[in-house]
């Protein structure tokens, strides 16, 4: 599936919750539990994404021209956010990852996680995924 198609799928999935933020966050927490976990050997200092109150480790790999991510975090809501990002970007080409705007975050009402005062570092996370893709496209 294309990035935009997966984004639409997620927007639809979250639209079921309407204004019910508790269910939405419960879902996010469940997603966190399903995160493709990073191999312990990649849980090293240079794979920690800085700027997070919670720690996030992320590892990326290039396979057959597509980029794949694994990650972990010590905070479960952060993990849910990472899981969403990975679901959208996993198995895409570096070029598509670099170019995508990831508008779904806004549309599913988790925009607050993009604000610079939010200590979970979603912005740093996105930057990291894009920077890794830039490296792979060289």
């Amino acid at each position, binding site marked *: 599936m294309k990035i935009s198609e997966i984004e639409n799928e997620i927007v639809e999935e979250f639209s079921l919750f309407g204004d019910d933020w*508790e269910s939405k966050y419960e879902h996010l927490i469940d997603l966190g539990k399903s995160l493709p976990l990073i191999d312990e050997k990649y849980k090293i200092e240079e794979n920690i994404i800085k700027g997070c109150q919670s720690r996030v480790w992320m590892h990326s790999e290039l396979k057959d021209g597509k980029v794949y991510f694994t990650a972990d975090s010590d905070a*479960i809501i952060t993990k849910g956010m990472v899981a969403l990002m990975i679901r959208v970007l996993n198995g895409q080409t570096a070029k598509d990852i670099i170019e995508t705007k990831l508008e779904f975050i806004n549309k599913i009402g988790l925009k607050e996680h993009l604000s610079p005062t939010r*200590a979970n570092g979603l912005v740093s996370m996105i930057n990291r995924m894009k920077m890794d893709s830039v490296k792979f496209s060289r």
Partner: protein
Amino acid sequence: MLDIKAIRTHFPILQKTVNNNPLVYFDNGATTQKPLAVINAITEYYTKQNANIHRGVHALSREATELFEEARKTVAHFINAEESELIFTSGTTHSINLIANGLSFEKDSEILLTQLEHHSNILPWQLNAQKNNAKLKVVPIHEDGTLQLENLKNLVSKKTKVVSITHVSNTLGVINPIKEIISEIRKLNSNTLIVIDGAQSVPHLKIDVKDLDCDFFVFSGHKMYGPTGTGVLYVKKNVFNQLQLSASGGGTIKTVSFEKTEYVDGPLKFEPGTPNIEGVIALSAAVKYIDSIGIEKIAQYEHELLGYAQSKLAEIPEVEVYANHLNKAAVISFNVKNQHPFDVGTLLDKYGVAVRTGHHCTQPLMNYYNISGTIRASFAMYNTFEEIDVFILGLKKAIKMLS
């Protein structure tokens, strides 16, 4: 008894809703909300009195200067200091930097801090120690967040030039018995300069710098219902001449030539440039506001809030409170077993409850407990028992969602 209903009407921001819930503001340790008296003082100043001070011959400048110096008197009396001992700064951090940058020592001197200190009471001393080849020493704490005072006599020696201690821990709320500590230090070394970081005590406790007998006492306006960008550096009269100038400029002199400058005496010497005039005037409005309510009454009420909140937290088995006792200002730091503070804080925010999560600029203290952070709820005079119920209910729901 405090009339909390009336007090709440003095703080317009408390009418705000967050995520469709009434705002429950429990991040007062970071900064307090401002009463109308303070907000109006700023508006009034710019509407009617704005002029530069200590400079003009004209009426407006005279009026502004008078208000500014009146404010110095008001704030000085609030902590039982003389106005000639009170320097206005931009905040606690600025005040501590003025002290640390204004003192120099011979090699191998020692500066004594505690495990509880805020980074703002560590880093300026670290820089000072690097410059002077001095050593930082640290008073350790007990598990309950109290200082290991039995170690004081091993830590204060002839080499100890400065002891800089927080009055109230911003992370734990623990109140240090600084009066006894100061008198103990005086006995061990009468030349040691004693700095008290009052950032978290001034909003909650009656302060009398003469009675305490400290050499320096510092605090921030914004944590005591006053505006940001205001702070105080109290310097005891007879140590004024030990503090060297680390910054200088206009408004601080008698005469200047390229060869030699003669400075004015007293606090103005340490206030170069145009100060935060409206801020200082509004800070004095904050002091008057606190006085109108009564700091002792505020302290007592906040203590009741603390006791109530801690007893409610004790009913939640997953909650672990640090410094779980009542010899504290109205601050509670806690964690939920197996949960990250960030997750708990994020969900509480959704319920409209503003708490702080993280290391609270006290990483050495976090290292002591071997944790990355805590959830901190800190109260002010306008908080209520009902708000604590909302917080506890939200916390219970958050724990359920997370586990």
